[in-house]
């Protein structure tokens, strides 16, 4: 999956920037600190916009293209903001064999969202995830970290209704 920089406008706050700089300072002497810095930066901002990468580059002396190289390599680093409700459907082997593809299609249909995209109002994002290791409950999906197991397509409307506001 090729990653590109987002077209969504950057709305970082002063508090977020202060937190980011504190994280960088805290990790200063840690060996191999770029991964932890990027992971914590994503926790602060929800994704990794170029503006954040620029701050990290200047503070750590690492070229921004190297940071972009790391951010674009790992699938968990998001260059695009997630929806308010981030829906992830597992397409790992056990879930796939038990029909998670049909669950994914149903969600995509209900929300009018192609897989791997965020809705224009920023409310929902839908992505296929790597195996999260709950294979005993296949098929599995998560919404903002809430795990739903033994999924079938007809459960989808009822579950989505909980995430309307």
């Amino acid at each position, binding site marked *: 999956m090729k990653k590109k920089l987002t077209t969504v406008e950057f709305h970082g706050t002063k508090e977020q920037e202060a937190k980011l700089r504190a994280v960088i300072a805290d990790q200063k002497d840690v060996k191999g600190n770029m991964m932890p810095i990027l992971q914590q930066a994503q926790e602060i901002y929800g994704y990794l916009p170029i503006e954040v990468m620029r701050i990290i580059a200047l503070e750590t002396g690492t070229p921004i293209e190297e940071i972009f190289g790391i951010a674009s390599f790992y699938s968990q680093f998001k260059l695009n903001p997630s929806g308010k409700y981030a829906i992830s459907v597992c397409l790992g082997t056990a879930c796939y*064999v038990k029909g998670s593809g049909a669950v994914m299609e149903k969600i995509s249909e209900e929300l009018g969202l192609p897989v791997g995209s965020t809705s224009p109002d920023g409310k929902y994002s839908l992505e296929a995830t790597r195996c999260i290791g709950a294979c005993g409950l296949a098929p599995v999906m998560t919404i903002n970290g809430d795990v739903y197991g033994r999924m079938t397509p007809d459960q989808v409307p009822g579950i989505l209704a909980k995430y309307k506001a």
Partner: protein
Amino acid sequence: MKSLTIAELTAIRDRKKDQILLSEGKDRIRVVIGMATCGIAAGARPVYDTVVEKVGAAKLGDRVTVTETGCIGICQYEPVMEVYETGKEKVTYVKMTAEKAAEVVEKHLKGGQIVEEYTIGAGTGAKKEDGSVVTSLNDTVFYKMQKRVALRNCGVINPENIEEYIGMDGYQALAKALTEMTPDGVIQTMLDSGLRGRGGAGFPTGLKWKFACANRGQVKKYVCCNADEGDPGAFMDRSVLEGDPHAVLEAMAIAGYAIGSDEGYIYVRAEYPIAIKRLQIAIDQAHEKGLLGKNIFGTDFSFDISLRFGAGAFVCGEETSLMTSIEGKRGEPRPRPPFPAIKGLFGQPTILNNVETYANIAQIILKGASWFASMGTEKSKGTKVFALGGKITNTGLVEIPMGTTLRTIIEDIGGGIPNGKKFKAAQTGGPSGGCIPASLIDTPIDYDNLIAIGSMMGSGGLIVMDEDTCMVDIARFFLDFTVDESCGKCTPCRVGTRRLLEILDKIISGNGEMEDITRLEELATYIKSASLCGLGQTAPNPVLSTLRYFRNEYEAHIVDKKCPAGVCKKLITYKIIADKCFGCGQCAKQCPVEAIAKTDYVAPGKKLPAYAIDPKKCVKCGACMATCKFKAITKE
């Protein structure tokens, strides 16, 4: 923190052991509720909260303790609650809810009466020899055939309480190693035990440690733990981390003593938040008792562990990629030699072992190498944890001695294939592995047997497939994964896997040619021999394995343009059998693309004209077949 002395450690053990096992003394009850990822996902938290509340309200606190535990292994039946009572067999309650839990507190904990209808036997219909319902997991076939070594504490102790780990002889192995054994002696024990890496490749653990042991104390070395568990369908390591994290910490410290290292890293995938949380708690608690840190047990051995998180890259489960990722870079592998034992993390001698490998170490030290070597087969000693998933009745985690046959796993432990379907194949080794067809179901599972039949042990994910699974589609599924996860550094993998995927796509969409099979086999040879790391080297395995045992399916897709299992959408034709059609028109109403229309033909004995599907418009959604009450629509 000043370290515990061995005497203090033993005192905690003696105090806690009885509280956990309830082996003697006054009549007590211990309730454990499975709170690993699956348990919580299935709704274990309200069950736990209810039991705690009701036990408190009924003032049973001095007789009854309630605790969280890790993965009990029967994911199918979560939320699970087990009740241990002094002198009695434990009772296993399954598919619990808050309401059922309240009832169990009332009738069983207070009233002394087992609520049979909520026990494991009631749901499955399992009965004991005397005809009574099976109420304990220990009496089920699923459990009786297991030998829990790596998983021994999972589902038994509270993983967030170090004293419960200590109560089960925790940290006694480290104490023994530091005070009664030499570092070389520890390595010899590992060699004698025959323990082989449980991450998939099966390299002898003792040998790995031996390669890194030169120049102890003179050069900085690292001990790493691979907790990336990237194989889809594998959750063995997750269960150990969520259920018994201290087992890993203790083993890493023992490894550090053996090779002369004072620092370790656990690289855990970010998709395991509960495992991360419990590891951090475990590390903090170990620090508090001085079991990690400086001068452990008052010796001159110091060892500490840090956590590092993955960020969603399957390739980072590969040894050198993992180390590169800890170094904060793109997780790309490195050429070997030099091997990590000589030049690894940050350029220093490093050993990397899998979580499950570590979970075995403490017991090998305490019970001895020959105890471990007495289990398993000649070249594959010990046990293996398997994550059973897919089309099998009992999904869950099982630990069995090496050499157990696939038949035993599928028919006895797994409870067979649901819905009356036929077993077709079992996939082991994830995207690096291969399938074991039904004809080889009596294969004893061990490292070498699996390689001989074209698969590999892998980390332990075992996905069962039935007659409704298309093996060409499965090969394509794995290639899709591998193409996505390829790091891109070396051409054979970056380009080669993509070409393999394209050929498979061609075949499943009805455009395949017989030469495509030759092309697949040729490409596979190049990719396997020229890729830089294990990801590329093993990526063609699912293709080669399915070609070996299910070549007829490939040929059906290519020559007949048909998918025998009825999976590959582009090759399926939905057809209305005109003579069975009553002309009700319901199928036409359901069809989302208006592909069904009335014909002129009225079948003998029917009143209304039959309908027919236009194959050019049909999108193979199957809605018509699901709607037809007269079974007049087929899929072929």
